[in-house]
């Protein structure tokens, strides 16, 4: 009997075109578009030509020399000091991936090189930075403008911080405060043993992956609709049959649950195909995703059981809840996560997407396993609470209780 019920529940759920688009195709499309948007500029597929830049200190003052040195150091994060091979400024050995090649010269030589197109731009280093590019280029000035604006910002921040410590306005964090911050924040953690740098985009991506993991709330709502006589004609007809509500519940839950678990594993494999590096602890990542999807399904069953109304309010909740949780986890902007943690701690503590994001991040940074385990435990408790609410909701209905 159970096999019969599961077979047809699976057939009808997977055969539903709206379900297919909403629950199965959309997550793939969403992740793909997000990846394109977040990682295209740092991916291998973009092949930018190196910009050849000549740095021209305005004078020999100590402050200008210091600024020139700082700018060279800044450029080293994305490029190399160029070497002259004959008449051409080129990259040194091993520096083929450079975005910027720089060299230093006086203003006369620089203008000459610029005119003869031996370099793409010259930067005049004075109290304010200014630059000149060779005629007919459109991308170079845009990139240079952004790079120099970033440099100025970093430079000023650094000066302010140093000045702050010197005049006593800032005090260093205690060891316990540092540890607390390290455990919870997302931005700026220096993980030098990782092969790739940590971008805030990764946090957005983790939150987005958590979002699609937590997406199938609808599946849970559908489970209850299919068994509660007050919610659908199918359920009314089935309630007249000699089958217990428990059996109907299990038969409706299993196919939807398994379909979404398979989907999330496929989605994980898909991100691996796209070469998204979020750590090598695959089993733990999959376990976390499975628990995330389970929590979504049980959130849906709890909503369905506690709101014995028609569909509309539940559809609204199934869309808004994941979005709200995802926003609180940093999907739209990674600093929101920290803000929520500080100002809305109850949402931070009970947000399943926050737990998923934290768990993925903990695995990515290879940080203390206790942090990952805490998220796993939190999600398990969340699932159990939702299941309890579901059973309570089904039992309290005026129809047959399970």
């Amino acid at each position: 009997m159970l096999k019969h019920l599961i077979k047809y529940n699976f057939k009808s759920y997977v055969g539903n075109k709206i379900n297919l688009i909403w629950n199965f195709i959309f997550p793939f499309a969403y992740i793909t578009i997000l990846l394109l948007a977040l990682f295209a500029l740092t991916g291998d597929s973009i092949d930018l030509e190196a910009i050849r830049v000549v740095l021209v200190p305005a004078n020999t003052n100590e402050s200008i020399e210091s600024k020139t040195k700082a700018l060279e150091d800044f450029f080293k994060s994305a490029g190399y000091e160029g070497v002259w091979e004959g008449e051409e400024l080129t990259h040194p050995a091993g520096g083929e991936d450079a975005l910027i090649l720089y060299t230093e010269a006086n203003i006369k030589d620089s203008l000459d090189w610029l005119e003869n197109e031996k370099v793409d731009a010259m930067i005049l280093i004075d109290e304010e930075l200014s630059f000149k590019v060779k005629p007919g280029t459109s991308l170079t000035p845009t990139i240079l403008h952004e790079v120099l604006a970033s440099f100025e910002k970093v430079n000023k921040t650094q000066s302010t911080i140093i000045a702050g410590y010197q005049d006593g306005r800032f005090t260093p964090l205690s060891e316990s405060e540092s540890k607390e911050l390290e455990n919870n924040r997302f931005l700026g953690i220096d993980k030098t043993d990782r092969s790739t740098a940590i971008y805030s985009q990764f946090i957005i991506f983790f939150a987005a992956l958590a979002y699609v993991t937590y997406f199938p709330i609808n599946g849970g709502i559908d489970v209850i609709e299919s068994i509660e006589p007050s919610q659908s004609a199918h359920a009314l007809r089935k309630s007249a049959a000699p089958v217990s509500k428990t059996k109907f519940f299990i038969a409706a839950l299993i196919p939807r649950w398994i379909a979404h678990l398979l989907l999330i594993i496929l989605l994980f494999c898909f991100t691996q195909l796209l070469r998204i590096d979020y750590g090598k602890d695959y089993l733990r990542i999959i376990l976390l995703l499975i628990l995330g999807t389970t929590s979504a399904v049980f959130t849906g069953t709890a909503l369905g059981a506690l709101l014995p109304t028609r569909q509309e309010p539940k559809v609204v909740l199934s869309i808004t809840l994941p979005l709200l949780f995802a926003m609180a986890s940093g999907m739209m902007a990674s600093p929101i996560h920290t803000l929520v943690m500080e100002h809305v701690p109850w949402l931070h503590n009970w947000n399943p997407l926050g737990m998923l994001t934290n768990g993925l991040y903990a695995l990515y940074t290879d940080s203390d396993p206790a942090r990952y385990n805490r998220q796993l435990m939190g999600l398990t408790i969340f699932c159990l609470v939702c299941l309890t609410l579901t059973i309570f909701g089904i039992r309290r209905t005026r129809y047959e209780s399970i």
Partner: protein
Amino acid sequence: MSEKIVDVEVIDLVKRYEELVAVDHLSLSIEKGEIFGLLGPNGSGKTTLINCILALLSYDQGEVNIFGKPMTPRSYDIKQQIGLVPQEISVYEELTVYDNIDYFCGLYFDVKRERRRMVDEVIDFVQLNDFKKFHPKKLSGGLKRRLNLACGIAHRPRLIFLDEPTVTVDPQSRNRILEGIKQLRDEGSTIIYTTHYMEEVEYLCDRLAILDHGKILVSGTNEEILAMSSISESIEIVIYDLTDGIIDDLRSMPTVDSICYKSGTLSMAMKQGGNNLMSVLNLLTKAGIEPVSVSSKNPTLNDVFLEITGKELRDNA
């Protein structure tokens, strides 16, 4: 004389929704092998009554027995022999016609081979053989109704609840469904039939009850209910040479309630009792008068229904 077997027995049933009494001390018995019509305006308590009988709803007072046993949510042996065809078409759009019937039949029968035979038989019964592999969205309204019916009766239930099974179907499909229901009765099933179509009740039902405000107002056979009505037969005769003497003779007939002759048309309202038209025509023939045209109208179930339940709209708040 053999004692009749009661399949459904409802005793003093009360169901309240807070202040609203949906079913009010209602008692009812339905005999084996009959088609029992349940009539009533919207909100009269028909659906609540059916849900209580099926133990889908709990009730505040009373007793429901089916096949002589108390009906509870866990009376699976009784449920095994019940079929439900809800008013709303409740089939899965994602499953084919065959799969839909197989799914619902599978709730009652686990043995695959036996189930396959039952599904084939019911497909044949509702004449959906050409549509086995169709999805419901490809079916017309009438075919969907037939599928809805098939899903409720495939397991050969002894007791079938049919809730307005012919709503929005064309006359051909309706005829097919009604014939099928009669056939089910003839094969031994007991049927509880709710509808708003009075002509269906007149055609199908062996007995019926009219419900309103959670109470049964009248119940019995068609004839018994028509006889309870104060509305009677009306006769109209077009006739040109009628004298006052003949009019007096007609007025003095014991079954005549009122009489009016105007512009060559004789209108007569009759009291209860049959064969009124024949008596009037006999009297006119004896007087040597030949009517130009004659028409007679008997009260219908619809007239009785409106007389009992009133004519005000029920869906208005």
